[in-house]
């Protein structure tokens, strides 16, 4: 075969092969087969309503098989106490599994601090969970793609594929991830995806007696949660990381990080 002929045939093969490949991008199976392209889950926390009962943590651990006695949790509640002499205390004893039954502040290392109720300036509770970010740092850094974002906006972990390197734990600015004490792979909040897909509320939303936690479809303009997020003043945690969190907070104090 002549060199010229060889090159011509090469070009033909390349062009011919690239046509079907480009057709694949027109008919992206991911888009065609996506079951609910109109759903994008978002979480709404009303910090004004939270009383720190810890029912959400109990419900979450029960629903998702995270042992009660393990010192990790998919969701937790933080207590913020500001004193009149301008001191700030934060704690979350056992992730608030049993609520805040002790008025003293847990300082770690087994130490507790009693605060004079007269000295308290303001105090409030902030529930936290995975923010299911739009551009998550955790899924970006997973070396094997074991953690991923679903089309309806939920970040999940494939337990059968996670190698347990911990890079996603390091990358998450919210501390939402941990190693499952029994499965020995990374674990995190799934928005109770198994319940959502059956049309149920997630366990923590279901357990909250004061509707401090709610979930909605942010792509549906008539959804009451979407209405609140669109019409009221809501904030997100740590927006400086550019992860675009999808958990919105009403009444967020700037000190909450």
């Amino acid at each position, binding site marked *: 075969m002549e060199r010229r002929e060889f090159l011509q045939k090469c070009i033909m093969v390349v062009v011919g092969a690239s046509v079907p490949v480009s057709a694949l991008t027109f008919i992206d199976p991911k888009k065609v087969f996506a079951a609910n392209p109109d759903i994008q889950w978002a979480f709404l926390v009303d910090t004004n309503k939270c009383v720190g009962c810890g029912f959400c943590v109990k419900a979450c651990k029960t629903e998702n098989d995270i042992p009660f*006695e393990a010192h990790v949790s998919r969701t937790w509640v933080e207590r913020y106490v500001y004193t009149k002499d301008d001191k700030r205390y934060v704690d979350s004893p056992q992730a608030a599994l049993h609520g805040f039954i002790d008025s003293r502040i847990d300082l770690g290392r087994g130490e507790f601090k009693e605060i004079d109720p007269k000295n308290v300036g303001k105090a409030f509770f902030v529930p936290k969970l995975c923010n299911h970010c739009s551009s998550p740092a955790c899924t*970006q850094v*997973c070396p094997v793609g074991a953690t991923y974002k679903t089309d309806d906006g939920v970040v999940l972990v494939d337990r059968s594929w996670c190698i347990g390197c911990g890079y996603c734990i390091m990358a998450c600015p919210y*501390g939402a991830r*941990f*190693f499952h004490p029994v499965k020995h792979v990374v674990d995190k909040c799934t928005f109770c995806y198994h319940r959502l897909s059956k049309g149920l509320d997630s366990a923590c939303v279901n357990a909250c007696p004061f509707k401090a936690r709610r979930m909605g479809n942010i792509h549906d303009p008539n959804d009451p949660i979407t209405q609140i997020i669109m019409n009221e003043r809501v904030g997100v945690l740590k927006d400086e990381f550019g992860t675009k969190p999808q958990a919105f907070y009403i009444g967020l104090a700037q000190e909450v990080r």
Partner: protein
Amino acid sequence: MVEQVAQHAAMVVHGEAWTIKELFTLPNEYIYWSIQIVMYPFMTGLVAGAFVLSSLYHVFGVEKLKEIARFSLVFSFALLPVAMMPLMLHLQQPFRGIHVLMTPHFTSAISAFGIVFLTYASIVATEIWLVYRKYFVETAQGLMAMQNRSNIDSFRMMVFQALTLGAWDISEEAVEKDHKACKIMAGIGIPVACFLHGYAGFIFGSVKANALWMTPLMPVIFICSAVVSGVALCILTYVIVQEIRKYLARSKMARWAREADAPKAEELEAVKHTEVMISSNYLLYFMIAAMTLEILDLIFRGYTQVKSWDILREVIMERDFTKIFILQYTIGNLVPFIMMILPGRTVRRTTIATVLVLFGVFMMRYNVVIGGQAFSLSFSGFMDYHLPIIPHDLETFKEGLFGALTVIATPFILFYFINMFIPAFLKEEEKAPH
């Protein structure tokens, strides 16, 4: 109560065994990346540094480094598998570690590991083969010509025959071609070695959630300190091995020492002196670069005082002061630096300095990896790392003192075996044309 305690002990989550929390830390925060992740950049740094030292001779033709260059090449080969070891020991699912090579997820910095590491490994292996091909052929031919071989010699013959890869031509032109190819491989090897380690720095530097790690300087700092540690380890090991050889030469205990043209103890001493003096000059240059960058990073953080500075200042200036300023900068950098620049430098003084340099680089890795996890993401609490010493289960062994010591000891054991077939010290110097 007893059952409760027992149940509680069984439910220790990963990281809890060695983390002590103070003030407010998020419930899921622990020191997840522990001593093995300190070992990982330390060991890859040694690999990359040893290779750079060997390239000084192969690429830039620093003739006087000939012997230590060949030694560091073989030693960097022995270090190679050990760069992977700490990662495997740290994984929660070590049997799935191969996924990183087989199904890499390319948005992750770690996914580059397989490609970079294997490229680098093949470059080092090729270079060693090119340098030693003549030796393999000669040894194999010698063994084949031997009458009534013992079993060991037959086995050695088979290994050497395999090592030649069927390339038996050792005419002058063929060997000259080998040298040329070797030079090219070493030339490609330098950027790849730097990439191998720069990417280890990138893994840390690109974690935006971590205020201490996140800096574009991280890869460069890692490369410089890698070269420092690699050169230091090569000098140290070289001196130790030469001392052993001197002893063997005097006492005629080894097979080679009984041969007629065996090097004398005095000759070995003279060679050692020159090689160590020249390599330690390079060590100094790289130390200056590494220290400048590290201190620049620190000053920049202190000067710009962004949001994270309050907590970083407390970690750097108070909690980890001893580890950073005393152990790392003073004992690990300043003291050996002064020891080496003072006039009348001797081999002994340089050797002690290299031990301190290695310690300093190790402390730098420690302070980066552990120090980066010493404060909470909430910026209102701290975590203290307690290295497990007496292991009480597999996890505290793997990620404890003995796990780390296993990783440190392995390259020397590997070197012992590799050295049987690829001797780091060859006598045929006068014959080889460069």
